[in-house]
């Protein structure tokens, strides 16, 4: 079988062996969960419960307030203890519904759907609060309601970020559910083809998926183990050789990309009526004593999860998501959300934090950039306040994958320069 890929990119140390052999294990939350009303891109949900209300796992506690917004559900049964502003993963404060856990885990479900129509699937995705679980957390029903006809649905099972193994375990252990989910997504989109892409380092998960996919007319493809293989534009190019034009969306080339875990969540929502309040989270990093893959209820604090996995004394950095694009947190207070794929507990040695030195113009950043940009030029210009001149190097096309900063021998903050250039250009254009 031919292994497909995109051009350029990097090979960071995978470190998946830390957690890849740990089967998904449930971690039940502690006395309280704090469920954020903003776990998605778009308008925060509006709480529909008050202090003292009884809720069950799966009870609606926050209602979507706009088209781009998502419902939020309680993840435990118990009593609403507080509605308070708390810091989220990014450090920004948002409203959380704090629920006192009664440890009974009584459940509330939506109606089960058998053989639903297109519209019913999309409505269910909205009802169940499903968002993209690969990290972006875009409301899934909005993605499914795409206007352009879609001919290829791509399921991203590449999981190209180092350390993370949550999707791998899901695809391996619950392949049938993932495939059923893909079938539902394909139907909702009216797509002719559906292709599940898995990186070559997850051969067993690929085989497991293939077993169920073939019967459903769903294609499977192995893609090269290379970062950022799971980048939307990179994956589309690898599998279809279509290039998403600058400033356009995958829908413009007839493709939709979604994550394997999202498809699985849709399957649970349709077949079992289970809203999205639980997900698989990889806890890994050299400072995690017992790395693993845990089925975690949203609202569980990262601190609680970290204690469960054990924290080594040389722990210096906590990252939600992967090491290439994840967000570093200044405490372990924030709650696990619908899009938290991993919690990394990192040591000094693995982050390799060193002071930046002058650029030596080696062009390694340009040579690995999957978008063929010139990060060193943007970096040099933006530090001299030459915003206008950076436009020539198109920082607005940067996908912030971090490949440039990863390879930089001078350890320059290249991604940050690209972000700064993007912001400054936008500010200028608004003026």
């Amino acid at each position: 079988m031919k292994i497909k890929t995109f051009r350029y990119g990097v090979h960071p140390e995978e470190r998946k062996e830390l957690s890849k052999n740990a089967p998904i294990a449930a971690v039940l939350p502690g006395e309280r969960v704090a469920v954020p009303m903003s776990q998605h891109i778009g308008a925060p949900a509006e709480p529909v419960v008050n202090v003292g209300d009884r809720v069950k796992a799966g009870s609606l506690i926050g209602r979507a307030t706009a088209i781009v917004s998502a419902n939020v559900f309680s993840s435990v049964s118990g009593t609403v203890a507080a509605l308070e502003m708390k810091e989220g993963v990014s450090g920004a404060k948002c409203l959380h519904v704090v629920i006192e856990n009664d440890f009974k885990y009584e459940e509330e479900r939506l109606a089960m759907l058998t053989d639903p129509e297109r519209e019913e699937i999309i409505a269910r995705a909205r009802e169940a609060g499903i968002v993209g679980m690969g990290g972006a957390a875009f409301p899934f029903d909005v993605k499914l309601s795409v206007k352009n006809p879609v001919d290829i649905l791509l399921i991203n099972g590449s999981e190209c970020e180092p350390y993370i193994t949550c999707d791998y375990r899901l695809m391996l252990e619950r392949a049938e559910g993932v495939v059923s989910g893909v079938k539902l997504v394909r139907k909702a989109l009216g797509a002719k083809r559906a292709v599940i892409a898995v990186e070559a380092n997850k051969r067993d998960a690929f085989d497991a998926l293939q077993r169920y996919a073939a019967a459903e007319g769903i294609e499977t493809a192995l893609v090269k183990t290379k970062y950022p293989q799971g980048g939307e534009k990179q994956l589309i190019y690898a599998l279809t050789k279509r290039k998403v034009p600058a400033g356009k969306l995958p829908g413009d080339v007839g493709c939709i990309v979604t994550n394997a875990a999202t498809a699985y969540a849709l399957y649970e929502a349709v077949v079992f009526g289970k809203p999205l309040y639980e997900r698989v989270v990889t806890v890994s990093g050299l400072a995690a004593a017992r790395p693993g893959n845990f089925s975690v209820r949203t609202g569980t604090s990262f601190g609680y999860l970290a204690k469960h996995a054990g924290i080594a004394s040389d722990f210096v950095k906590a990252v939600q998501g992967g090491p290439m694009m994840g967000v570093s947190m200044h405490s372990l207070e924030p709650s696990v959300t619908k899009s938290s794929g991993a919690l990394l507990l990192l040591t000094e040695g693995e982050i390799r934090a060193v002071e930046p030195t002058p650029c030596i113009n080696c062009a390694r950043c340009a040579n690995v950039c999957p978008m063929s940009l010139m990060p060193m030029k943007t970096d040099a210009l933006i530090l001299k306040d030459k915003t206008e001149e950076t436009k020539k190097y198109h920082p607005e096309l940067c996908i912030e994958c971090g490949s440039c900063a990863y390879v930089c021998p001078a350890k320059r903050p290249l991604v940050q320069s690209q972000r700064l250039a993007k912001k400054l250009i936008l500010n200028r254009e608004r003026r």
Partner: protein
Amino acid sequence: MSENKKLLVTPSPHTGSALTTKKIMLHVIVALCFPLVAGVVLYGFYALFVVLLAVAAAVGGEWFYNLIRKKPNTTGDLSAIVTGMILGLNLPPTVPFYVPLVGGVFATMFVKMLFGGLGKNFANPAATARIFLLLAWGTQMMTFIAPIDYSTAPDAARLFAGFVSDNAYVTSATPLADIKNAAAAGAPGVDLMDLFLGNIGGTIGETCKIAIILSMIYLLVFRVIDWKIPTGYFVSVAVFSLIIYNEGWNFILPNLLSGGVMFAGVFMLTDYSTSPDTRLGTWIYAAGAGLMTILIRRYGGMNEGASFAVLLMNLLTPLIDKICLTRPFGYKKPPKKKADAGGGAA
């Protein structure tokens, strides 16, 4: 383990490759030791002295520049050692001691630091310094000794030639002069095996091609240099040897194996800050250097063209990069609007 411990917060990415600027420089220093050892074996211990003087002067020049400009000392990045070694290996094995001293200081102080230091210089410091020395001390820079003959045990005077003024080992003919003179005759009378082994007169580091090939393999394996540059340059030298001399295969290997072609292709054209950052630009740069080398060798007033070709292409690098700017993935140039152009003029 308390949860209140202060955690490190930075923007992504949260990891990086192990490669640093200093490690790159160390790799290059290791690679430069192959031709250095070859040079000492071929021409005696004075060659080592020359290279050490050039290194000392290059490091000293950078250190002194930082001192008088009250800037932090930058010699710790080891790049001045690389510059000094490359310059030293580009000098004749018995050159007077003041030549590497002046050259080293010139390379780092004038060519590198004056333009902003590491990564900012627009011309290769070693190549520029070599050309400066050629103009300043033409005779000393063009006096080469024959390699040591190991078929009989060489005496101490031979091994230490250069420390005392002694012209006994000077050789008149260099292969480059041969090639130049033979261009009209149709075929150069050089022994290819001698060229390959370095059994000829020439500069310290340039003559032994086996050593340079080992360096190239080392640098490619550790991904220090861009493979496109030596590949493009050597192919270009071969192609233009074929075309410009118009004598069939006769001049291809003699041109590739003589003078500074191999050394420049591996160590000098590959200098990061003076070579293009764009993919297409890199090919054009390498090919252009090959053309210039052969043009100078065939029609120029000098026997050797590699250093001049390096310098010339260095100067063209910013222009090449501007013209060859890589188009971002999925980006198409917006069509030009005529109305806009008119409005701009008004």
